[in-house]
Structure formats: C-alpha cells, structure tokens
C-alpha cells in the first residue's frame, strides 16, 4: 500500500462492490416482520376530493393518510418552503399526488387494494403549460395568480435608450421541455425503529434534508429521526428533495404501525410520479449597433408544477446565467416561476442554468448569422473576463481562459475550415457552444444557510471521513478519500468514508450545486492539514466549519453582488450529418474543453464529462416527455428514451489547468457544468445542416420534419 499523491491514477473505491453486486441498495434491506407500502395517488390534476373508499382491509393491512398525522404534526414537507403536502387532503393539485399509503405484508395484495380503491374527485380545469399559467387557466392556483416567485436584475444603461440607439433589434422565444432523470436506481426507502428513534435507510443525495423535511410531519425533533443513506444508484438532482415525498408518508405509517416498512418505486412509478426538469419559455430581445450587441432584455418563465419545492432557487440560477458567458453592456432580465397542475419540477443537473444557457447561445447564434458573422467569432468578441461585471452587478473574480479553450477545440475539430466549407442546408454541420456554471450555492447560501461542517477522525493509522455528503455515482467517496490521503500522505486504503448517518456525521450540507468537491473537499483538506501536523497525538478528531472567502459581497434582498464564488467554464463542439430521407441525425464528432480549476481525479472527471455531454445531447435530441391534461405520456424506458453508447461517438476532451484559490488542490465544481452546453452546440450544428432556424428542444426526427416544413422545405 503506497502513499498517494493527488495526480495518481486510482481505482474507484466502489467499483468492485457495485460491479459484483455486493453494494446494498434500499431494496436490499430486509428486517424481521417487515411490511411493504404502496402509494395511492391522484389520477386527476386538479379537483376536490369527495370520497375515498378503500376495499375492506384484510387483517394486518393499513391505509395511512392525512388523518393519521398526529395533532402536533403538520401535513407539510419542509423543503425550502413548507408548501408540498405529505398527503393530499381535501383537494388534489397534480396527477400522482400522494393521497394515502397502503401498508401490509404482501405486495400483490397492496396492488389489488390500490387498484380497487375508489377515489371520487370533482375535477376542475387544470393549468398545465406555462401559457396556461400566464393566462390563469381554470382560475388562480395561488391567491391571485399562478406566479410562485419572480425576480429581476439589471445591469448597465436604461434599456429604452439602448433599444432607441440600436440599428437592429432581434426578438426570439425559445422553449425547452421536461426532462426525466432516469437514474439507474429508482426511488426507494425503508423505515424502522431503533428504541425511540425512527431510522430511515433511503436512496438520497441529502440525508439532512430528509431529516429536516419530515420531522415536522409528526412533530418530532430532528434528532428523533436518523437518516442513513443507502448506496444510491444515481440521482442527477432527482434525489435532492424528492426522497422526502417517500419519507414523509413512511414516517406517518411507522408512527402508526411501528413495524419496518419498505417502499420501492418501480420504473413506471419513477417515470410517471417523480420530479422533472423545469420546462421553460424564454424570450429575448436584443439591440445591435454597428454589428455589436449592446443590450439584451429577457423574460424567463419556468414551469414549477404544483408546489414550489426548490423552484425559486432554480429560477434565480436560471436568471443569473441568462447572459451566458458574455459581457453584454446592458441587460434587464426577469424571471417567473409559474405554478401549474403538473408534477412539481425540481432539481436536475444544472439546476435552472441549462435552460437559459441554451436559449442565449441559440439567440446569439441566430443574431450572428443574421448579421453575417461566424457565430463563434461573434461570441468570442464578448467573452467575460476577470473583472467583468455580472448581470447581478458583481464581478468575475477569476482568470477566464475561454479563448484558449475555444482554440483547443477549434483546432482539434478543424472548426474554422468546416464552418466555412459546410454549406447552410448541406446535410452536414458543425456547431460550438460556450457555457459556465456558478460553483456552490447561489448568493449567500453557503455562509448564511448551510454553514457546512466536516470532520476527520483518526483511529490508530486509519482515518475516517465524517460528512453528510453522499456518493451517488459521481465518484465523491473516491474524490474525498483521495484529497484526505494526499494531504495526509497515507495510502487511500487507510481512509474510510462510509455512507453518512445523520446521528454520526456533522451536516456538511446537501450533495448538490456542484459544491461537494469545492466546499466539502476544501473542508476535508483543511481538516487533513491540521491532522497531519498533529499526527503523533494518538486518536483524535478534527472538525472544521465553512469560512467564506473575503470579497464576495451579496445582498439577497436585491440580488446584487457576487452570485457565485467562482465559475466552471466550458466549450463544446459537435459535428453531425443528417439523413435527408429520414431526418435521422448522426453525430460524428464531439470535442470539449473545461476549466474546472483542477481535476482531483482525471478518470472520474472524464466520466462526468462523457456522461454530462451525452445527457445534454439526449435532452436536445431525443428525450421527449409530454404532458397531456396533467398526465405524462411517457411511462417507460422504451417510450422515454435516453442515449445509448451506440448513439454518440467517442469524445475528445481537454482540461484547462487554472487552479482556484479556495478549492482543494485548486479544484472547482464540475458535475453540472458538463451538462450545461452540448445541447446548444448540437442544435447549432443541426441548424447549419438543415438550413433552418429552430426554437425548441428536444428535436427528434418528427420535429425536424416540422421545422423543415415550416420553412417551406
């Protein structure tokens, strides 16, 4: 066993247990006398519940609903706000809303009970789309309208003046669709009691979120509930808040029944009845003077669904990324989170940034083409630099190396020649996009809300990492062990990092927002530096609290200042061919360059880049989730398709070495960044191949046909 240095090539610590089937997922937990649970869900998007009639329950079977919430409890899940109910009570607000939980020993009996339960709902007209919500279809969902949340930010001069001086004004609207996470492991949890404490084994990203969210349902203290993360097979944001929706009803059932209870969604349930990425509608109006972009006005609408959940924060990130990676002299950007009667939208890799980044990239691409400049040349002239003012009147504090990233992928892909030679509408196209992602929580979240703690514990020659951060397939258990071992100069095998248990580890904040390596990794690095100095002292622990770097002013009430501590940056190039007979698209090359400060583990980083880019290409091309009258139309992995390894070619990657002052070994966040831009490069290339402009994603072959027809081709 050798000491490790940070650039060593290592094997992921979870590789063998996952490949061999040893890893224990939520569905692998069994307890004596364990019961199963099955949800009774709303089949209507909006209406009053008139009657719930279950069949006669056989001995040992239970039906748990809002009536079982104790008097000192509240029918609410405490996510960011408390609006999402544990159980629907009196009315339903979306298809799939939890009405009750059947619990008992045989799953086939539970299925039959659920199927034979009669729920009478007096249906009301639902609002499904963003337009429905703008028009307050069916009457207001909220007090007076369907606007959950809104914000604006302004930079530069008065927009009327800017548009008054313009010699060209271009206005466009873009739309993006729902996206389903399709994590490998569906949602699931098992609850049991140990003494007086409720213990949850749950597939989740944020054990402390689950604890906080559900304790109020039975009026318990946070400490009365112990959350142990079960090995989690993928998340992508879908297990940031959504596990609370399983955990809340399970806790009420456990409170009533007192036996171990297991609830595992099958794939159909996970597709139809789980959170999705926010669909968006984004309007931009741009002023151009002397071939230069002088100002952009934007209105950004996100479909939040029936409950607020994390949507206000998602919307903020969307608005703060709505200028892309460009220093636009004047901007006025407004965002609206719309309440509808669809399944609530929630976190998904990128967290609101991908929608606006896609729209601004396409908008600038269209402007460039209309004024006769190569889009890449046009965009390059506006790249943000160190010191540039952001749309929230803060400043870019790091060196931005987008120019050399562009050069790397342009050379590797032969972009300039191909861009010149491939004719518009020739069936071949090459496109490029640029993007960023603000690291860690938006605004003052890290110092004001999370205040993360992390701990290292030394026992003999072994060291244990104690944090609330989770491994969900992204490689964090390997990354964090590598950071600790490299600082301590000990073998990685001597560092343990078990799945977190909220009764043991300090709260290091949610595993979200690309903050784990940057924030928690930094905390563990600081713990390890101290531990190394005191190594001879025997067994002891070192715990550190988050310290906010100086020079990042932020006012949460006005959204002014540095919205993020630093950004990851990306550039992506996609080349493709379109079969003119069938509109099938064949991607023939993918090149990307990313600035993530420093790669802690290059193999893991490549895995993230590969997966993030393919996921973004799926979002742009084939991942179509439609909602008709509140019902998702795609319910299986054969009608909602995600890319396979046959769909896209091998990628070529570049990484910029640009160490970040406050990250461990110079690392910044990267898990979301790599999702944020390949979609726009793909659509840019596709538009060149087809010779038409498009305004929405996804674009499967049928929609390409429609776009061509609209343009008279």
């Amino acid at each position, binding site marked *: 066993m050798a000491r490790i240095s940070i650039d060593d090539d290592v094997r992921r610590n979870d590789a063998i247990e996952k490949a061999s089937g040893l890893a224990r997922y939520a569905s692998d937990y069994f307890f004596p006398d364990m019961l199963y649970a099955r949800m009774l869900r709303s089949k209507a998007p909006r209406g009053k519940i008139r009657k719930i009639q279950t069949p006669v329950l056989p001995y040992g079977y239970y039906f748990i609903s809002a009536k079982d919430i104790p008097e000192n409890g509240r029918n609410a899940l405490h996510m960011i706000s408390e609006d999402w109910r544990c159980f629907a009570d009196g009315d339903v607000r979306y298809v799939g809303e939890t009405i009750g939980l059947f619990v008992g020993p045989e799953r086939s009996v539970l299925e039959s009970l659920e199927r034979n339960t009669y729920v009478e709902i007096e249906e009301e007209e639902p609002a499904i789309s963003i337009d429905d919500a703008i028009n307050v279809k069916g009457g207001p969902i909220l007090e007076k309208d369907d606007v959950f949340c809104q914000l604006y930010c302004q930079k530069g001069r008065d927009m009327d003046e800017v548009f008054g001086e313009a010699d060209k004004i271009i206005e466009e609207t873009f739309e993006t669709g729902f996206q389903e996470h399709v994590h490998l492991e569906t949602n699931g949890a098992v609850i049991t009691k140990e003494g007086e404490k409720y213990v949850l084994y749950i597939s989740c990203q944020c054990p402390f979120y689950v604890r906080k969210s559900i304790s109020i349902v039975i009026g318990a203290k946070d400490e009365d509930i112990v959350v142990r993360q079960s090995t989690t097979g993928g998340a992508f944001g879908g297990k940031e808040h959504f596990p609370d929706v399983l955990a809340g009803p399970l806790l009420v059932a456990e409170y009533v029944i007192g036996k171990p209870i297991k609830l595992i969604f099958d794939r159909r349930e996970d597709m139809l009845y789980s959170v999705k990425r926010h669909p968006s509608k984004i309007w931009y109006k741009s002023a151009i003077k002397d071939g230069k972009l002088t100002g952009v006005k934007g209105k950004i609408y996100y479909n939040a669904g029936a409950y607020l959940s994390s949507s206000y924060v998602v919307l903020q990130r969307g608005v703060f990324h709505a200028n892309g990676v460009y220093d636009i002299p004047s901007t006025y950007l407004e965002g609206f989170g719309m309440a509808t009667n669809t399944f609530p939208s929630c976190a998904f890799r990128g967290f609101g940034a991908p929608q606006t980044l896609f729209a601004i990239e396409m908008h600038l691409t269209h402007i460039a083409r209309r004024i006769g400049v190569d889009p890449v040349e046009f965009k390059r002239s506006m790249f943000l630099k160190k010191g540039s003012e952001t749309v929230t009147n803060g400043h870019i504090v790091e060196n931005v190396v987008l120019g050399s990233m562009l050069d790397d992928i342009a050379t590797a892909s032969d972009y300039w020649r191909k861009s010149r030679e491939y004719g518009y509408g020739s069936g071949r196209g090459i496109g490029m996009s640029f993007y960023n992602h603000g690291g860690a929580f938006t605004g003052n979240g890290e110092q004001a809300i999370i205040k993360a703690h992390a701990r290292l514990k030394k026992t003999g020659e072994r060291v244990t990492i104690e944090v609330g951060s989770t491994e969900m397939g992204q490689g964090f258990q390997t990354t964090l062990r590598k950071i600790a071992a490299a600082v301590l100069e000990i073998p990685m095998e001597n560092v343990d990092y078990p799945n977190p248990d909220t009764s043991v580890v300090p709260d290091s904040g949610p595993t979200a927002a690309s903050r784990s390596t940057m924030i928690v990794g930094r905390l563990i690095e600081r713990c390890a530096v101290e531990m190394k100095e005191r190594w001879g002292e025997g067994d002891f622990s070192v715990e550190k609290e988050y310290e906010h770097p100086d020079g990042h002013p932020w006012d949460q009430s006005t959204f002014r200042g540095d919205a993020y501590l630093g950004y990851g940056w990306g550039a992506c190039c996609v080349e493709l061919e379109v079969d003119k*007979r069938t509109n099938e698209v064949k991607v023939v090359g993918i090149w990307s360059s990313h600035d993530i400060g420093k790669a802690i583990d290059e193999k893991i980083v490549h895995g993230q880049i590969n997966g993030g880019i393919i996921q973004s290409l799926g979002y742009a091309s084939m991942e179509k989730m439609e909602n008709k009258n509140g019902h998702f139309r795609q319910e299986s992995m054969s009608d909602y398709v995600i890319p396979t390894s046959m769909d896209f070619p091998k990628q070529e990657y570049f990484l910029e070495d640009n160490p970040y002052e406050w990250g461990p070994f110079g690392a910044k966040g990267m898990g979301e960044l790599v999702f944020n831009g390949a979609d726009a490069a793909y659509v840019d290339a596709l538009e060149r191949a087809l010779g038409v402009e498009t305004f929405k994603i996804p674009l499967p072959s049928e929609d390409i046909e429609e776009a061509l027809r609209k343009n008279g081709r």
Partner: protein
Amino acid sequence: MDEVKCFIPKSLDEALRIRKEFHAKPLAGGSDLMVSYYKGIGIAPVFPFPVMIISNLSDELGTIRKEDDGVHIGALSTPNEIASSMVVPYPVRKAASLMGAPSLRNTATIGGNIGNASPKGDLPQPLILLDAEVVLRSVDGERRMKVDDFILGSKKTALADDEIITGIVIPEVKATHYFYHKIGMRRANAISKLSLSALFDVEDGVVVDFRASSGAAGPKVRRSRDAEEILIGLKLDEVSGKTGEFLSAWNSILSPHAMPEYRRASTRRMLLGFIEEVASGALPGNYE
C-alpha cells in the same frame, strides 16, 4: 389469491396435447408476455389464461436450416441466432440484428414475435416482403399459411386454439438488391417507429421482381402487389418515369391515421432513394 395454471411440457407432442386440452398459451422468451402482464416489483404476473413454458423445446423448435422449399426457421430461434445465420435472407437478418438490446436478442423468439402480432414487431415486416409462411401444428396435423394472412391485425392472428407456431419457412427469393431500414427513437434498443424493406431483382437491365413492405405503418404490415406491378417488367431506364405512379399507389395503401406525415414522408423518400439508386445502375447488394 389469483392463480395461474402453468405447464412445462417436455416434448412438442406433450405441448400439443396441453394446447388441445387447456388452450395454454405458449410462453417462450417471455419478452412480450411478462412485460404485458407486469404488475410491480415483487408481484408475480397473473395471466388471465393458462400458459405453458416451451423454452426448453429448442431441440425440436430451435433450428435454422435450408431445405428444398426454402429456409426453415424454428419458432424458438432467437434474434441473435437469426441475425448470425447466413442462410437467412438479408432483410430478416438485419431486422433481427436491430431488435432490442443483446439480452433481448438472446431471449425473444421469432415464434413469439409473430404470435404477438404487434404492429411494431420487427420480424413480420421483412418476412411478409419475402412471402414467408408460418407453420402451425396441432395434434391433428400441420398447416401452413402466409405470414401476411396469419396476422389479421394488431395483436390478432389466425392461430387456432389448439395450434402452436412451430416455425417459419422463407421460400427461395431471387433478388439482386435488398433494402432494409428501421427508424427507432435512438440507434439501438429502440422500438420501431417505422421500418421499410424492399427488393429488386434485375436481369439484363429489366426489373424481374420488385417488392416493398412497410412496418409500424398501421395495424398490419403494408404491402401491395398491385403497386409493385407498376415497376415490374420495366427496363431500368423506364423506372424513373414510373416512380411517381408507384409512389402514389403506395401512398394510397398507407393508413393516414397510423402514418402521420413524418413517417409517410420518410417512407416515401426512402423508397424513392432506393428505386432511383437501382434505376441508375447501382451494384447488386444490400442497402439501408
């Protein structure tokens, strides 16, 4: 609790007797039936009819061989076996190779794919192009009928309640040019949105035979001998003059309900492309 009557016959004779007495539905790979009657994790599917698991009869029903009257494919042959057998004509091989993922291609069977009669099934379409016959056996004997006649509509077949599909026979087909193309929602492991097969047999510059069939195009695979006749007998340099007439005749057999504009237009462009290629003297071979 609901119970399912389930048999596991040890020989084809036994299976035929069970079929006659209990009308048990044969379950081979299970890749359609188990999915159709899936009820949830940890819940056994409940079939509303008796079933017999025939997957261990592959000695009797799992071979692929060439005989005087054509290529015989046993009903339990899997897509992988079909795709890798060089005696099977190109469009059937190609269709088999594009079905599902590797696990499905090792599990599903040609008998099941035909018996299930899904409009999106991959194998019936090229089989109908080739005028293949399905072999049906009961304790009383054996009969054969064209796959096109056997499949009556979506999920409907002419199978009698005492019969089992034992195999497929593809008669010898003379062709110089084959075409097969499947459009799914992605490049692999996708259910067919649209599939098209076509063939030309060209001798001394004359079209001796021409056929086309279209899958996922409605309740049944679409083929029209009348439309095909428009091109048969023409010299290659006369073909492009008649292509328009053929395409309109072809278009008229497609159901507008089942074939929205994209699929209709793609089918038309693929046919046009293949016909033009052959008419302009393309070398014999397989096209996609």
